[in-house]
């Protein structure tokens, strides 16, 4: 159980190697070894989505992934969302539409929205609600989160035309 294993993967475009015991959870590796504390822990049990990261092109809950499963993976966390040209449209949307209050759910929400809008670039309101259902927020009541995601959808589609 205590034999460490070397695991190599890419986070936010940078290649990293960590030595971890097999039971170490990805969320702890990100937060404690790589100092990427934007990814949060709200439950440890896959319910809240605060730990959502982008993992090989899918949204995953990093509290339920072992770091050893991340060999060769491409991971994006909230810290990697903004690009050289500024904030990502989902970040802008959350700011513009008052989509956050305490901010604790926000990184997970943003990472889910980031992937969701690639899966469904022109979602209806109901589709946004279903698409974001793996992420809990205790503060906002979701109404402005829905608007934030729609804001980002509009912005992204304007960009692609």
């Amino acid at each position: 159980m205590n034999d460490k294993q070397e695991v190599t993967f890419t986070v936010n475009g940078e290649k990293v190697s960590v030595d971890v015991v097999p039971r170490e959870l990805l969320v702890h590796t990100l937060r404690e070894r790589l100092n990427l504390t934007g990814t949060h822990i709200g439950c440890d049990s896959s319910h809240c989505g605060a730990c959502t990261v982008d993992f090989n092109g899918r949204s995953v809950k990093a509290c339920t992934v072992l770091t050893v499963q991340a060999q060769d993976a491409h991971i994006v966390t909230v810290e990697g969302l903004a690009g050289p040209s500024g904030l990502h449209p989902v970040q802008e949307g959350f700011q513009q539409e008052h989509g956050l209050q305490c901010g604790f759910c926000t990184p997970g929400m943003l990472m889910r929205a980031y992937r969701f809008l690639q899966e469904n670039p022109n979602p209806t309101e109901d589709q946004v609600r279903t698409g974001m259902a793996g992420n809990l927020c205790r503060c906002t009541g979701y109404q402005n989160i829905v608007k934030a995601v729609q804001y980002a959808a509009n912005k992204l589609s304007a960009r692609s035309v």
Partner: protein
Amino acid sequence: MGIPTEHYTRKEKLGGVGCERRRKEDARFIQGKGNYVDDIKLPGMLHGDFVRSPYAHARIKSIDASAALALPGVHAVLTAKDLKPLNLHWMPTLAGDVQAVLADEKVGFQYQEVAFVVADDRYIAADAADMVKVEYEVLPCVSDPHRAMDPDAPEIRPDLAGKMQGAHSARKHHNHIFTWEVGDKAATDLAFSMAEVTVKEKIWYPRNHGSPLETCGAVAAFDKANGELKLWVTSQAPHVVRTVVAQLSGLDEARVHVVAPDVGGGFGVKVGIYPGYVCAIVASISLGRPVKWIEDRVEHLAATAFGRDYHMTGELAADKDGRIKALRVHVLADHGAFDSCADPSKWPAGFFNICTGSYDIKVAYVCVDGVYTNKAPGGVSYRCSFRVTEASYIIERMIDVLAQRLGIDKAEIRLRNFIKPEQFPYMSALGWEYDSGNYAEGLRKVLEACDYAGLRREQAEKRARGYLMGIGLSTFTEIVGAGPTKICDILGVGMFDSCEIRVHPTGSAIARFGTKDQGQSHRTTYAQILATEIGIPSENIMIEEGDTDTAPYGLGTYGSRSTPTAGAAAARAGRKIRAKARKIAAHLLEVSEDDLEWDVDRFVVKGVPDQMKTMKDIAWAAYNNVPPGLEPGLEAVDYYDPPNMTYPSGAYLCVVDIDRYTGEVKVRRFYALDDCGTRINPIIIDGQIHGGLTEAFAVAMGQELPYDKEGNLLGASLLDYFIPTAVETPKYETDFTVTPSPHHPIGAKGVGESPHVGGVSAFSNAVIDAFSHVGVTHIDMPYKSCNVWKMLHALGLDKRE
């Protein structure tokens, strides 16, 4: 005065009260740069984890930590025996009781803290916690509060044996905490005996939990060389934490540095002081290394302060026209094994005596009995100013019960009983002086916006066709902004709040407060209040809170108190700045102060608009050219002791459709009109309303912490505890009226909790209204499909024709 458009531009640029300013908190959060307690990492930091009791009531026969201590990476296992020499095995609660930090010979609730393991990392700490062997002798337990005061009920608190005087009243049984009575019992009894109509209902407000997305935690770092303690903690009231830690530890308060960094939601849960904080501190002091303790979600739900759990009996006396003559309420309050309610010291049931609500009820009597049971301690206010939700719930439910009995429309009966605008300030039968309100105006606006008459017609048609539709109204009044120090204190510290401003030479400013944001947007809105008062754009005013070394002392953020108290302090400190600025401007312009008038961001010589000094000019002069006799600098501080509470109100309407066959409740419409007095930032207000309504929805539709007879908590994870997702959550329409508070410097009343307080009864009243035609007057929350289906089934409404 400048020309109108120029004047308008300056006002726009100011970003003061009333504008839709975008949040200043967001930039860090959306980039993953927040700084919450669990993000703090110090060199040599260790991690703590608890051994918790599997039993609700048991004697601890022995604790064997040898195997745990033998595990590499384990540094200590603390038990009550280790804390005893420091006198830290028990700690005072805010309610005047004591609570075991680590179980002292006996456990009183399932999941109680028994031992604290400290190790190199959280994995080793968890392993070691599993290896601590505790031998228990299980004792009979009290799970049902109605049995708590039976003569033969097991004694939950032998530490109180023989103590027949509690913090709030005499104790009449070993499991009795207090009896709290308010109002005129004799007059109320008389009114009931003479009334044309009386109604009575047993109403339980179930035990639930505020459960913010971030759980509780702390990092304690004791510096042995200097004898100083630094504590980062998930706290809504960091200054209070500092005072309590100093008192408990014996450290000089100046050597205790408490910081509440970013807090991931609080909702009242982060007001109290928990065993984990104390254990982290003790471990850090004894090991000389920083110690982090972060609870997991199960620990949070199972052991950290719950909300509500009020077993209420409500009664109304009225005449045949539905005019209420008297209110009588009895409450059996289940406080769990320790009385750890977070209320102002003199208020064992919080401000439950606001339960006459928005109605002109001449006589009333309330009696609350608090009892111990073998359940987790707590009783904090879950987004509610001290039991105000329970109070609002009982009156909003009872007025519906009365309407049903008399066959009077539920809107009409409210209009008949409202306190009228001309009656303010209004002294209630239970002792509160309501500041202002216009209840009928709010309700009428809502009824019109939703076509209430049309909804009632639709309901009648639907009923005729066998469909269940419910319309719920809630016209609540809250009491927030605690509070006047002569009646409100926490552990002896009066509940004032504070603001300190420094205007820098180049014309920007920093202001610090005794409150602590957990999502309320203080950085954004406090700066707006100040901008309007001192004429410096809100963009140039930094707001800081949470560091007890730099912020002025204050009692923190809960009970919707930030705007009523610290917001008032901001306005008053701002006025002190402006008064000094006037002196400086007069000096610079070589006129008398009386010749000057204030215009948005400057002083202008009356009638000579181009003779003026902007705040920027004045700020610079404050540091090099003040009139003789005046101190240089431009700073002010204000400690605001409010003369009264504030009384926000609202009118909510909720429409539900219920599936007869499955019991599923669908919220079709929710219209929320709030009156929080002066509106500082409409966007932030709407955000607070959406969030609070969603909590209310969660409470009404599913949140509960049920216990079985043996005191086992049935469901303490997010698998069982209902937190709605975006899919279940209804959509909300918001609206407002503005009735400023006459005693608040800017007329603001506070809004954070209104939607929760008013929302719960709106949802409840809607569900129950759907059953009113078959004679149902009450159904206890939560309205999970299975519970609603049971009601449908019992009434035979689920039969297919």
